């Protein structure tokens, strides 16, 4: 398989110098300003809990499913939240199928800390029978296209999928109230999850000359930058997580500047997510009313051209 390793993409020296020189005059190669985010588009699939987010050229799909399991011994009254990231080989020629590499694991951990440690998703409401049955929520994130800044896009996909997911309603029954009956969605309307706040991840890239800072790097900029930092903040101004693993050292005032920038961006992204979820919920309600899909027979000869 050694011959196939020669196919990884590398940026040329000229390209790298061009990016760095342009940044000195505060110009980025895709025409953005240093503190400008790319356009975010959030779409949903037919099912509850499936989202597709496009951040510039980066594309991520999120899928939420739930299962009834036994809780952990030390937390008998809490549900379980787990995140699985799939760096699909379709996103980048250097992604190999099989076990997740360190990038995939790091991405999963950043999103996990943002959601779980900050108590964004209420896990106590997922408990049905303490010590016996709780809901385990599983979030699958599939990276479809790597255009840079996968963490932010994946985080938005996870949040959008969580907000539109509905879990089946269940009640206790049986002889001694120890059995759990799960009601199918046709009989009882499924319930949404309780999400207290939305932790948004915002990534920054640091470049070596004169500590230049950009927000939302593309994959060309990622190949050139000297260090990166991801801050997870919410619209209330709370800092949920900061991740800066290695790379070059950055002075303290730059970190504070990043946090302030992140808080202002988080507010606008939160609003965008909530608006998209609102549109989906309206459409879902309309779909419940309309039973039969409208499919009109079309004469083929007219369409072919």
């Amino acid at each position: 398989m050694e011959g196939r390793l020669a196919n990884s993409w590398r940026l040329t020296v000229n390209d790298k110098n061009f990016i760095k020189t342009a940044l000195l005059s505060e110009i980025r190669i895709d025409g953005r300003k240093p503190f400008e985010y790319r356009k975010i588009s959030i779409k949903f699939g037919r099912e509850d809990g499936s989202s597709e987010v496009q951040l510039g050229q980066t594309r991520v799909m999120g899928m939420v499913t739930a299962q009834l399991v036994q809780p952990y011994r030390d937390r008998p009254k809490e549900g379980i939240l787990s995140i699985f990231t799939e760096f699909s080989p379709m996103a980048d020629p250097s992604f190999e199928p099989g076990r997740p590499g360190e990038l995939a694991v790091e991405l999963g951990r950043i999103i996990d800390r943002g959601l779980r440690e900050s108590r964004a998703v209420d896990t106590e409401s997922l408990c049905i029978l303490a010590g016996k049955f709780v809901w385990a929520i599983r979030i699958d994130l599939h990276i479809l296209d790597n255009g840079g800044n996968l963490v932010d896009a994946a985080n938005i996909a996870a949040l959008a999928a969580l907000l539109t997911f509905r879990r089946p309603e269940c009640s206790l029954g049986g002889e001694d109230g120890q059995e759990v009956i799960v009601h199918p969605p046709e009989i009882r309307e499924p319930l949404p999850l309780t999400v207290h706040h939305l932790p948004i991840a915002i990534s920054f890239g640091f470049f070596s000359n004169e500590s230049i800072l950009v927000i939302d790097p593309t994959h060309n900029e990622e190949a050139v930058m000297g260090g990166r930092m991801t801050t997870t903040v919410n619209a209330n101004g709370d800092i949920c997580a900061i991740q800066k693993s290695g790379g070059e050292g950055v002075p303290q005032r730059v970190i504070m500047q990043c946090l302030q920038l992140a808080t202002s961006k988080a507010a606008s992204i939160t609003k965008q997510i909530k608006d998209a979820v609102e549109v989906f919920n309206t459409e879902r309600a309309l779909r419940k009313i309309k039973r039969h899909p409208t499919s009109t027979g079309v004469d083929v000869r007219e369409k072919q051209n």
Partner: protein
Amino acid sequence: MEVDREDGRSQNQLRPLACSRNILHRAHGSASWSQGDTKVLAAVYGPKAGTKKNENPEKACIEVIWKPKTGQIGKPEKEYEMILKRTLESICILTVNPNTTTSIIVQVVNDDGALLPSAINAACMALVDAGIPMKHLAVAICCCVAKSGYVILDPTKLEEQKMKAFAYLVFPNSVHSVLPEGSLRVEGEPIENGIITSVTHGIMSGIHCCLLNEGELQVSNCLIFSGGTCNSSQLIHPKLGDLNSSFGPIISTDEDSPVC
């Protein structure tokens, strides 16, 4: 025999088809194919140097990676990979680029019946988008046999589970590839399509001829659709004039409209 299907379609009616090409930026070719609610995304990374250990280095090699919507990769996914690989190997011209590997990655976005045919169609479109040399297009359809003996096309997931048997059939869009060299056309008789791949589940008895006829009807529909998407009139099957079934609205979009 009139049949009541849940979404109000008739026996021969297909769900609305939709296809988009060139949707991903890093991949060399990409396509998404949806039949009703079933949606599949396929991406192609063009010829890379080297083949795998057990493959013939005198020919190009095709590698298929099937990514399910959620969960681990198990035996069903491996089976789909194998079926896709063999089908695509028979439609690509493998001698043009020897000792190379073309990877096709299929991602299931939503599964509502006829998953494997949608994946084959999406993979074929993605190969066209990447510009991989092919002999002809492959069109896959699904037909099933119900317990009472009637045949329906393009089932949804619920219908698939209730059926006695179903078959996935893949046809090429040009008869010449399956005719033996030098055979004469019989005067006045239309030539049948050959079958590239067929996967069946369940028991069928002598109904397969009926299935094939029904299958060919659906194939003609899909061919016009893929032919239109490719923007090339040479790929359309000559049996076009015999259509007598109807199907749902078609939406076809190209992100950049390249010439095929």
